[in-house]
């Protein structure tokens, strides 16, 4: 047998650190002041600090730099030879909403019906999901849980307005402890002009004339317009009158922050035509648009830059949409967008594959994206895009202490996360996979 792997060792230390005091006294409060010392600190807000110290208290960073004084009573982690980064932010997932894709009883990602602006992801996020600790072990400290996936697992629902996405920490006993922002964006799937659809009932591809597809598209866009118009009137009524003057409408009430530009809309679109249509629509409607998916963002990069539309890119490790696209079309897109000044984040768009987020960002670097941009695309950029840039995404005084301590580049395949802090608490990296590994590592040799 090989030497105990480092990940396992780290986990055992963490179990010792986290579990043993708990046994001694279940109510014993964890330390509230920590210091990580002698680390190379990549703050992502300025250059890296050699032999640096970061101190945090009650969940927030109080000091970062070289030669920082360590407060008395602080729990000190000597990170000599290690590196500290802001925790990774996976800004599109279905974390806690979807446990096993093929088992509909475990999927709460998409409500039935086309327009559900009032449903909120945080309501259905299961804090006990096995995905959460597994994802955390990959250095991901917070995610956006996004409702409204549409598709087969939602009973064929193809929701247009999918509901509100919630930004959550990947730690907490109950959802209230996990919440960063309950309503971080309104999710919209931009309608497509679909001349080809797949019919699940007959398991065959159906074609329809362009004119018919366009009509259906226009109808859906008109419906969205109509919802927004009604929401505007509703918002006005709310501002001006007493509740008696209007009947309460939960859906319109949910849309009010969207038309007031308080809540951004996260618009899923991949093809250039749909992106262009969506950008023009949001511009006209004066909505705060964030584009998601964006397989063909490169075709409309000038538009995206000029309108200031930020983008959440799907994984680079995705085949190009067209057969005659260059093989590396999605891999090289981040470099192209960065060069043309489009602001973007990279997300997993998944749960099981959330831990491939770093790998995806690294692949973008391999195809031309500057390394710093890749790192920021999974930390501070998504934080800024969703209005959380003052709370997470860099290591700066006053921000939440969501940090990872690694033995190398957090985007590289073989790097281990040694320690992980969420809201300033040392958080276990024990998870389903590690548990099963340890269990079967110990299976006696079969005769």
């Amino acid at each position, binding site marked *: *047998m*090989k030497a105990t*792997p480092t990940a396992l060792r780290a986990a055992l230390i963490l179990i010792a650190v986290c579990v043993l005091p708990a046994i001694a006294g279940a109510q014993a409060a964890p330390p509230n002041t920590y210091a990580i010392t002698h680390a190379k600190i990549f703050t992502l807000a300025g250059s890296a600090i050699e032999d640096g110290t970061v101190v945090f208290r009650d969940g927030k960073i109080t000091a970062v730099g070289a030669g920082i004084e360590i407060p008395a009573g602080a729990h000190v982690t000597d990170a000599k030879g290690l590196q500290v980064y802001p925790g990774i932010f996976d800004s599109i997932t*279905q974390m806690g909403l979807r*446990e*096993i*894709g*093929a*088992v509909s009883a475990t999927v709460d990602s998409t409500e039935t019906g086309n327009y559900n602006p009032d449903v909120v992801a945080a309501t259905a996020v299961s804090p006990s999901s*096995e995905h959460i600790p*597994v994802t955390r072990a990959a250095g991901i400290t917070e995610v956006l849980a996004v409702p*409204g*996936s549409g*598709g*087969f*697992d*939602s009973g064929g629902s193809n929701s247009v307005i999918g509901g509100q996405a919630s930004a959550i920490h990947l730690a907490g006993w109950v959802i209230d402890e996990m919440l960063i922002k309950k309503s971080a964006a309104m999710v919209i*799937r931009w309608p497509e002009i679909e*001349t*080809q659809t*797949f019919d699940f009932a007959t*398991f065959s*591809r159906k074609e329809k004339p362009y*004119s018919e597809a*366009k*009509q259906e598209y*226009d109808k859906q866009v008109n419906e969205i317009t109509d919802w927004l118009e009604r929401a505007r009137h509703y918002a006005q009524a709310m501002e001006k009158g007493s509740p008696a003057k209007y009947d309460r409408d939960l859906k319109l009430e949910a849309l009010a922050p969207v038309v007031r530009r308080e809540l951004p809309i996260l618009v899923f679109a*991949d*093809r*250039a*035509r749909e992106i262009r249509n969506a950008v023009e629509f949001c511009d006209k409607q004066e909505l705060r648009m964030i584009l998601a*998916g964006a397989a063909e963002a490169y*075709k409309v990069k000038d538009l995206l830059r000029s309108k200031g539309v930020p983008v959440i890119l*799907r*994984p680079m*490790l*995705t*085949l190009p949409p*067209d*057969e*005659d696209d*260059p*093989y590396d079309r*999605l891999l090289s897109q981040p470099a192209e967008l960065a060069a043309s000044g489009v602001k973007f984040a990279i997300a*997993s*768009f998944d*749960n*099981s*594959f959330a831990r491939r987020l*770093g790998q995806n960002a*690294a692949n973008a670097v391999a*195809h031309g994206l500057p390394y710093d941009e890749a790192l920021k695309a999974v930390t501070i950029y998504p934080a800024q895009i969703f209005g959380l840039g003052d709370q997470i995404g860099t290591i700066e005084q006053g921000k939440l202490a969501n940090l990872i301590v690694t033995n190398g580049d957090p*985007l*590289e*395949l*073989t790097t281990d996360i040694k320690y992980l802090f969420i809201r300033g608490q040392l958080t276990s990296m024990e998870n389903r*996979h590690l548990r*099963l*590994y340890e269990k079967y590592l110990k299976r006696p040799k*079969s005769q």
Partner: protein
Amino acid sequence: MKGSFGFFINAKNLRFPSLISILCLPLMAAAAPPDVPAVIVIRNATILTVSHGNIEHGSILIKDGKIAEVGVSVNAPKDAQVIDAAGQFVIPGIIDCHSHIAAESINEGSVSVSSIVNMAEILNPEDIDIYRDLAGGVTSANILHGSANAIGGQTLVIKLRWGQPAAKLPFEGALPGIKFALGENPKRSNFSIPGQPRRYPVTRMGVEETIRGAFSEARDYKKTWNEYNKRAAAGERNLIAPRRDLRLEPLVEVLEGKRYVHSHCYREDEILMLLRVAKEFGFKVRTFQHVLEGYKVADELAAADVGASTFSDWWAYKVEAYDAIPYNAALMTQRGVVVSINSDDAEEATHLNQEAAKSMKYGGLSHDEALKMVTLNPAMQLGIDKRVGTIDVGKDADLAIYNRDPLSAYAVVQKTLIDGRVYFDLQRDIAERAEREKEKKALIDKFKKAAEKKPEEKKPDAAGQKPGEEKPEEKKPEAKKPEEKPKPPQTDGIDSGSTVTLGGAL
């Protein structure tokens, strides 16, 4: 990625050949296969031989498609074509032990025993995924039938000779295989067509009986033929030959050791079930595919001398994948199982080097052990290790050249060689892009002109599209496309995330 749907739909699921693609593709595919210089020498490379360590500043001499010399210095003739690989890494070409590329279709799902069908007969040499996987360093792939049936179709190993006709794809001399499948897919747990009755089997018990039943028939069939052949050989006259049964013939080949069994599976119990059935009928299982709970029965797998071909880190897309762990490859390896990492997916195949690297993080395998997972080990599992899988004199010159250590997420394939021919060259690919764009634009213009000349065919733009709104690179209205095959929304194997319910490999 392999995950989900709708908003989360992978761009690969968005794939449908546009008219433009269809027009262009034959031209791209028609590109002649690369010339094969008689002698090539790769110089100044870091050579990861897999069989006998690494060579710094090494050279590889290739003659007539075979590796002639490997070492710090080789005796290259003056007229040898030189590939300068200074600062680059050469590894044996990647072998994907579970692929569905280059296939027109992959699932004959109507019956529980579909051994009558053969992947060799439906190869599509123009599938762009061949080229894309080449660009990921893949040189050989095990082209499997889907997993809709307890006993599925016949399978074959191909080389990714992009530009060659279908007849040139099969790996010469490689033993053919047959796909088996256990668990949720042959039970059709996640798949049903409304209004249609369920197909037997719907339980793991029934899956076993389906396989046992088929092999009982095959054994009787073999006996009947043996009897006939014996009597015919003895000179008996007026004998009537038994009726040929194309469904049972491949199973007889399995019983005779002339065809490999590659069995899709997930759970520990079904793995042991198939080993018992195989023992009962006296055949060998060559590989367990996916085998995500292989780590639970690693000793049994090692004792049965059966290969395990698994995913790096897929999990939770269905119940039988809920106990999947990324440590699987390492745990099985450490207990003596020959393990490979496969793709089951045209995209995943483009970075199998990276997927292999994960076994160093999850379970602590060495660099060499990790690299073997996508080179020598799959070659052994497919019985082609005398020809490929390591960089050794006498072997086929199937090589992948990276700009850095291939077990890194930052490594990019520079060239891929098969039989000493450069089938993928990054610089050439980039250089040709402008020409391709020009060609595409010319075709679009031609199409537009043709459309304008036919006023009777009403332009779809009449439906309210503003003139000029449609950019030429975009999907066109597409009136008729006789060439197009209906394809399910994703062409990947069954195990592609929750798309399990829809995947082509159902």
